């Protein structure tokens, strides 16, 4: 019935890296402590809906880009939502959304990370939008694929 394949962002990046189609420079962000945020939909919700959550894959990709990263607590299936999910970035209820994100910001602050890596447009938008509210304007919010693109050896 279906004539084509569907890949996740993770599968595709892993494929490129494993097949040697892209090479990555690990020194690029060696001085920047990074951390990773699990989007609800790729993780906990995928686990429930499809019986499989993407927890290991993004961390493996991250590890190909840098050794200098640490996990948030709690993470993976028990992570906290960034507060930007479910369309809340576009409902206009901004005070509630910013307050929601406070717990995520606390989690990040505790690790001392200078960069938060995310594979989701909503999480990226939310974290970038609220970081100044929590006096974290220096926090770099990075798409996972942006990190990979930054580390490309051409």
């Amino acid at each position: 019935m279906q004539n084509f394949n569907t890949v996740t962002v993770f599968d595709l990046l892993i494929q490129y890296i494993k097949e040697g189609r892209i090479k990555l420079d690990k020194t690029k962000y060696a001085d920047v402590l990074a951390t990773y945020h699990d989007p609800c939909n790729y993780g906990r919700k995928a686990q429930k809906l499809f019986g499989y959550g993407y927890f290991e894959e993004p961390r493996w990709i991250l590890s190909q880009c840098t050794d200098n990263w640490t996990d948030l607590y709690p993470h993976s299936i028990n992570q906290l939502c960034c507060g930007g999910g479910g369309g809340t970035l576009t409902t206009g209820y901004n005070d509630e959304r910013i307050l929601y994100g406070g717990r995520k910001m606390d989690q990040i602050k505790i690790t001392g990370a200078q960069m938060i890596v995310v594979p989701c447009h909503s999480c990226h938008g939310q974290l970038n939008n609220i970081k100044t509210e929590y006096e974290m304007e220096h926090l770099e919010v990075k798409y996972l694929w942006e990190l990979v693109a930054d580390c490309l050896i051409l």
Partner: protein
Amino acid sequence: MPDVIEPDAIEITDINHLNHQRFENWSFSQDFCVTCGLCSSTCPVSGIDNFDPRKFVRMISLGLEEQLVESRWPWICTMCAKCEKVCPMGIEIASLIRGVRSLRDREKVPGILHKGLAAAIKTGNNLGLPQDDFVFIIEDVAEEIAEEPGFEGFTAPIDKKGANLLTTIHNKLVNTHTEDLKHWWRIFHAAKEDWTVPSENWEGTNWGLFTGDDKAMKIMVGRIVENMEKLEIKTLLWPE
């Protein structure tokens, strides 16, 4: 003997007058709640606007869903499913929230959620961006990449028939965040991927997920499938 309505006074309800769509997104698990409060303890927005998931589940169970439909609660919850994860009764709280969202009069869906979706159904993308403008933006950004060292001769193939991979696009990347179009494109270039972008129905977001509109979701997905088949693409990447 209790009072019984006189046979003449009772009218037969025409079942066709009932709204059969009303509960189409409903998981019907609310009645298993043991009121333990674990969900409320773990929810990051508990307390905001007096919301908490236990209250929400109980109100549905008590038949008060009308009040919930009118309230802001289902829209400040992000449907993150943290509450569901800890619920000992396996209640599908995030689905219930989405179900309540789906019962809101479409014109009263907060913010731009429904407006964006309506534009997408009508025009193919949330912005109502015409095809010419889209193609112009894509080509313009591709030219910028081609000026970077190592990316000489870079182009973004549009509607390339038989390509290996088709990628959808998040509307914000052809609106306020065009720089963010470049990351995947740089990777495709380095990996020598045979890729393409469709010039129509490229929208990768699907706001029916948020508004509880399954019909609109299906239409949006169907268009992507159509693009895949029309262009005879082997692999779909849907980064949204």
